[in-house]
């Protein structure tokens, strides 16, 4: 029973990570022939209990508890369908959308959220057949107005947010922007130096797997602001 790779090694599908079966095969891995293999291109992480591969890329697949940014794509009689930039849409029911009393015969659902609205929502549950139930009942959830939404790879979201939110906070501060990063890779940006914020986020995404990124980004942002003649 042994580790085959080093922590943080880059692996590809079919690579052997562990000889033996007494470790949990977590995300990005699978068990076969009494061994654990990688199923993604990614970085392998061992822990006492298990092994996982953090993938380099991949479309967003909804997960319970995630807070995401989506766009209302349809309004039906008693619910809204939200596009999450995923193969699976989310559904927001009335009781999960608002505390207010809604009379289905009298009130117009579009008064709350209309097609095209951008919203921050939380994923309440995901069924086996991929029915995604959403809720607004989290203080982070709301309708967004103004600003713009850009797309980054969901795999890069943790890096863009940074430990304890430090990376994105850095961008916020220097660009005087409001930035919300959805777990689904949708990022909402609003503020004066929005263009710079967009470029900063894209740069973090590109260099996500490098060392010393936080400091480098601070320097780069200061540089760019100087160029814009704004210090």
């Amino acid at each position, binding site marked *: 029973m042994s580790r085959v790779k080093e922590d943080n090694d880059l692996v590809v599908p079919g690579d052997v990570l562990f000889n033996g079966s007494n470790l949990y095969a977590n995300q990005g891995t699978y068990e076969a022939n009494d061994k654990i293999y990688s199923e993604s291109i990614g970085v392998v992480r061992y822990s006492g209990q298990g092994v996982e591969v953090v993938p380099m890329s991949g479309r967003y697949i909804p997960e319970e508890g995630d807070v995401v940014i*989506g*766009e209302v794509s349809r309004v039906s009689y008693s619910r809204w369908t939200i*596009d999450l*930039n995923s193969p699976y849409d989310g559904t927001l029911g009335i009781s999960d959308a608002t505390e207010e009393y809604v009379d289905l015969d009298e009130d117009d659902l579009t008064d709350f959220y209309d097609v*095209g609205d*951008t919203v921050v929502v939380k994923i309440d549950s995901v069924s086996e057949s991929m029915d995604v139930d959403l809720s607004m009942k989290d203080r982070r959830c709301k309708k967004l107005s103004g*600003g*713009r*939404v*850009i*797309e980054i790879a969901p795999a890069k979201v943790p890096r863009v947010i940074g430990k304890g939110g430090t990376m994105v906070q850095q961008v916020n501060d220097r660009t005087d922007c409001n930035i919300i990063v959805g777990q689904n890779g*949708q990022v909402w940006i609003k503020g004066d130096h929005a*263009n710079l914020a*967009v*470029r900063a986020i894209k740069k973090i995404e590109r260099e996500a797997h490098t060392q010393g990124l936080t400091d480098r980004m601070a320097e780069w942002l200061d540089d760019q602001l100087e160029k814009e003649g704004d210090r």
Partner: protein
Amino acid sequence: MKINEETIRKIIGDEERLDDRELEEYRDIEIEPNWVRETAEGSAKVTIGNTQVLVGLSVDVEDPYDDRPDEGTIVTNAELAPMAAREYESGPPQEPGVELARVVDRGIREAEAVDLEKLCIEEGEKVYTLFLDVHVLNDDGNLIDAASLGALAALKTGFIPEYDEEEGLNRDEKAMDVPLQYEPVTVTGRKIEDKLLWDTSREEEEALDARLTVSIKKDGNVVSMQKGERQPYSQEEIRETISKAQEKTGELRELLEEACN
């Protein structure tokens, strides 16, 4: 989820762009002639920003058109490969693909860039046919300019193979260079919210109101034009566009010369 059309209009309305370029600024352009090594008689890969287009020149021998018995023919075809963007589907040529082919074609054939009489082998019987095939690999906007540049580069660096009565076409032997008598360079000016801008990305093109494609010869004469999309142009806007096109075609012509020599 794409960026909101409304947001694009607002940004362009403020005379800014999504990537901090000036309204008239082109993205980085790369032209690689002879990208296809063996199977085409000419080719070029053109990259503008993230847009990637490959143009191939294939030469064959066919009957001339009845009404032009002493002229060779040019056929332009464009394929928006499904890989070029998520929204594309496989299938018969769709509107954007057909228009792209026709606009590129207009910039070359209508502009009489190629001396078709030199492509005549036997009057009324056999002429060379030039096939220009535009293959879009990645669509990040401004396909017309990329495809036109690729077509011209392919013609400039391509060749016409030997043809023998008995043996047929011999693609290993060059009979002559492609008889280019003019080199019209094609650029497209676009309009969003009454602002005139150049080299739009695919996101920006979501908010496109109108476009005007202009082909200009070295001597500055305009040889072809095509307006597209729904909104109208004023005459002053057309004047402005053509003026700017003079400047832009000059820039592209320089890049083309560098790449093809």
